[in-house]
């Protein structure tokens, strides 16, 4: 459909200009913040020189938050894989009203603001043992929030392949369920599992709405530290911290864009 409007009249240049302007709105602040994190004195500007001093400072002060965020993200990934992939399989094998209802229910933690979910968790489990002060409390919130993304990514791929026929073929050759699941189902869904995994990691590392209420002074994650540094420290440190965060999520964002381009369903 692109051939028709390719006359490159003034309309083309006007729209290109507009699109570039939108792109600038999104990317200029990113570039500014990355540069600010590497500038000796942002107020003076670039002529004050470039330095890794602020990044060092961030790594020194905030390495705990970075490690905790990675720990939670990978634990969250493990949980969503163990819970989400079998659930998606069950939903894909029996599509129908009940499956739709279950899917709808599982989506609720994403439809309802994280603030409400966090409050609900605190009033229900805040007094149970040491859970409130444990990183597991944050993990629970992250699993609730990211599970729908894993289920939907896997479900989308399972819906696009003929799982029943593939499995019946394997079953007719005598493969039991576990064998079929491990050697037929999982390999055929790997693009969905990969897309879901990247989404889960990225969302967990950046999650703030739930985490701000669930965290304690001893369980500060990266976004919690970011909010701290934005509120109280000089702009160079906030920027350097943001730069570290960008570096952490860029690999998965680029991989995700690659998956989108290959025509995988977006989550």
């Amino acid at each position, binding site marked *: *459909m692109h051939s*028709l*409007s390719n006359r490159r009249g003034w309309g*083309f240049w006007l*729209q*290109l200009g*507009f*699109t*570039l302007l*939108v792109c600038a*709105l*999104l990317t*200029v*602040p990113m570039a500014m*913040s990355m540069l600010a994190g590497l500038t000796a004195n942002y107020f003076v500007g670039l002529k004050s020189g470039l330095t890794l001093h602020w990044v060092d400072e961030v790594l020194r002060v905030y390495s705990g938050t970075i490690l905790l965020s990675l720990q939670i993200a990978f634990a969250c990934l493990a949980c969503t894989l163990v819970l989400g992939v079998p*659930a998606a*399989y*069950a939903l894909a*094998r*029996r599509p129908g009203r009940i499956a739709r209802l*279950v899917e709808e229910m599982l*989506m*609720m*933690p*994403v*439809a*309802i*603001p*994280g*603030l*409400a*979910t966090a*409050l*609900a968790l605190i*009033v*229900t489990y805040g007094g149970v043992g040491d859970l409130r002060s444990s990183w597991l409390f944050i993990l*629970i919130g992250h699993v*609730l929030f990211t599970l*729908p*993304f894993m*289920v939907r990514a896997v479900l989308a791929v399972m819906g696009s392949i003929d799982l029943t026929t593939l499995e*019946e073929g394997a*079953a007719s050759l005598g493969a*039991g*369920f*576990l064998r079929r*699941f491990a050697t037929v189902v999982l390999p055929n869904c790997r693009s969905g599992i990969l897309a879901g995994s990247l989404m889960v990691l*990225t969302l967990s590392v*950046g999650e*703030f709405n739930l985490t701000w*209420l669930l965290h304690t002074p001893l369980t500060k994650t990266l*976004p919690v530290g*970011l*909010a701290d540094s*934005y509120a109280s420290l000089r*702009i160079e440190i906030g920027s350097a911290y943001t730069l570290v965060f960008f570096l952490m999520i860029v690999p998965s*964002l680029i991989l*995700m864009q690659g998956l*989108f381009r290959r025509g995988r369903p*977006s989550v």
Partner: protein
Amino acid sequence: MSACVQDAPLPHRPAARPPVRPGWTGEPLRLAALLAPAAAVFAAFFLLPLVRLILIGAGGTAGWSAYLTTLADSGHLDSLISTLALSAGVTLVTLAVSTVAGLFLVRNRFPGHALLVALLTFPLAFPGVVIGFMVIMLAGRQGLIGTITQALGAGKLVFAYSMAGLFLGYVYFSIPRVILTVMAAAEKLDPRLEEAARSLGASSWRVVADVILPALKPALISAGALCFATSMGAFGTAFTLATRINVLPMTIYTEFTLQANIAAAAALSVLLGLITWAALAVARSVAGTSVAAAG
């Protein structure tokens, strides 16, 4: 877990399904067992706490009517109304901007196209706090916009720490998502419809208004609902910009932490959850596809 359910009795299967083959007995039980862990976690850590929250909201002296009387508090009502207005405005602006850019990118190919798409969708998974910082970079005290207006002699324009800054932040946050949705929908359009319209003499604008936009309507509704629900419930951006911004999530946070008014915080968050959930449910029934908020 499958071995033990393998020999379970075979329930009646729907007539439309192919006949059962050997080795497929006990499938419903197995599927239930596969779904069970996710369902158990969901019930224990989401449904149960949510019910608890709803009960706490009604647990004050006012009982269930607390859900209505909490809005009689003029502060709460103001905050609800300004949040609704903000979200509606963000949704309209984001849809307009993203539709123009998304359609342009689908209908034209040029050098640098892939890079432009990549850059436009890059902030997709940024958390609200980082979005807030991006707004400070643009419109804060040392921001780009202020520097430019000052250089032009118009005085330093600073609006990051207000409702306008929040507006900019939510538009920033929503553009990548909506552009992706618009592009995905526009790529599926049947080019023959446009050719037919053109062959009948329709101008470019008429083609867009009468052929393309109606065809994109379901995608625009679902993307718009997502944008609206996210703007209603997001917290990180407002928290970064200023705790004084009067939006519902900030009000809930203040009630909970500073006033220790847990019943009001619970009632307001249940109300907020109902609004975002309803917005997405309505969009789903109109658009026919699944949508969900994030961030």
